[in-house]
């Protein structure tokens, strides 16, 4: 495309099918104890 550059992102819809394994970290645990962020976490599902 000439006018648009799209960054590579995970398709949320596809993640519905193989998601929810729960092996990822809890959101607040990793560094910040008063600010929940989820989008920074890495998926740990080996079968995604």
């Amino acid at each position: 495309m000439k006018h648009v550059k799209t960054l590579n992102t995970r398709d949320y819809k596809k993640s519905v099918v193989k998601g929810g394994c729960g092996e990822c970290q809890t959101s607040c645990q990793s560094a910040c104890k008063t600010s929940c962020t989820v989008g920074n976490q890495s998926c740990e599902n080996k079968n995604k």
Partner: protein
Amino acid sequence: MVHEYKNNGYNIVLDVNSGAVHIVDDIVYDMIPLIEEDMDASDKALYEALEGRYDMADISEAASEIRQLKEDGALFTPDSFEQYVDSFTKGKTEHPVVKALCLHIAHDCNLRCKYCFAEEGEYHGRKALMSYEVGCKALDFLVANSGARRNLEVDFFGGEPTMNFEVVKKLVEYGRSLEKEHDKNFRFTLTTNGVLLNDEILDFANKEMHNLVLSIDGRKEINDRMRPTANQKGSYDVILPHFQKAAESRNQQNYYVRGTYTHYNTDFSKDVLHLHDLGFEQISVEPVVCDPKEDYALREEDVPALLEQYDILAREIIKRRKEGRFINFFHFMIDLEGGPCVAKRLSGCGAGLEYLAVTPWGDIYPCHQFVGEERFLMGNVYDGITKDEIVKEFGRANVYTKPECRECFAKFYCSGGCMANSFHATGNINGNYGIGCKLQRKRIECAIMIKAAESS
């Protein structure tokens, strides 16, 4: 839902419901709201709406690209996830799986930080140290309630956990003894103010702690104002060499220096950069959460300056990384390609379900921020969870139960934010902590701008 914004010379378009991120030129940026309003708008109508700012040929070409994105499911994607919320939350609340514990090893502290939500380590209660027996019961509880989850997180927290470090060491040993038998992998974290962080503790931490969280606020005068010792002296000179040694000994990985900014340092980008200049590469500095009546509380009128600070910081981080000086700022971390699945994005931080806090005497709360709030006492390590209604209350909370979140572009990045912040600001875990949300949205915008900058 589409969110467009300009930052650092980039036009950025977020397709909220697919997660797609586009960097676009001015013509597409200007046309997207017009097409979102009228999907069937003709090129001529678009030309007229744009008041001759662009050529007709360019408009036709840009419109065709926008429509192609829509066809590819990367723009104007409808929200189709609300239908899954019930099934996600039902399973979670009926068969809760615990995967992380915050162990309050010591309700006591050797610093007197003015903003401490633990009230100088004592959490609205008495001074206490966790015994080895209570700690073992907590780890047993975690293993017994973790179902098939293999990776289990345990944070040694306080107060100041190094004031009870012999118990920490023995609990790590006990945890390791459970791993093989139960096919579990413990990831331990130590959160410390650094006063007692000597070689012995550091060696142990480097061997056993998956992560180390080191509390320091930034510049000496900023740190010492809010983080004095018990006899009201500054802590900066004591803790800094300990932290520098710790960061180097861990090869600048698997640790964070973390600070808190308040009304007294609304120029907090200087604190982040000060920490970087001191040699720290993994940095987290976050807004204070406290009673709005406190003199150091962030105020609505501070917000514009705070938002600008994130812009300044984002630009400086890009610059420093380009120069080969690596810096990772926790609140600008975003994993676009390998980030969480929708189930995780819908369910948030997991407090009250997957993540629980345990007091020195074994009481269980939804998270460390609720410790001492008796309404949220859920059970204890001996009897397990005795108040299922609290599990259900936290399990049901998600971006669709929070009215402000439903319409927010950031909902799948922050997942509804911190329920403790919401509770303390509004008295309701489904409430909205306005200042926190404004800062969160800005951090997400900056984080994605950095991705855009580093992709070009």
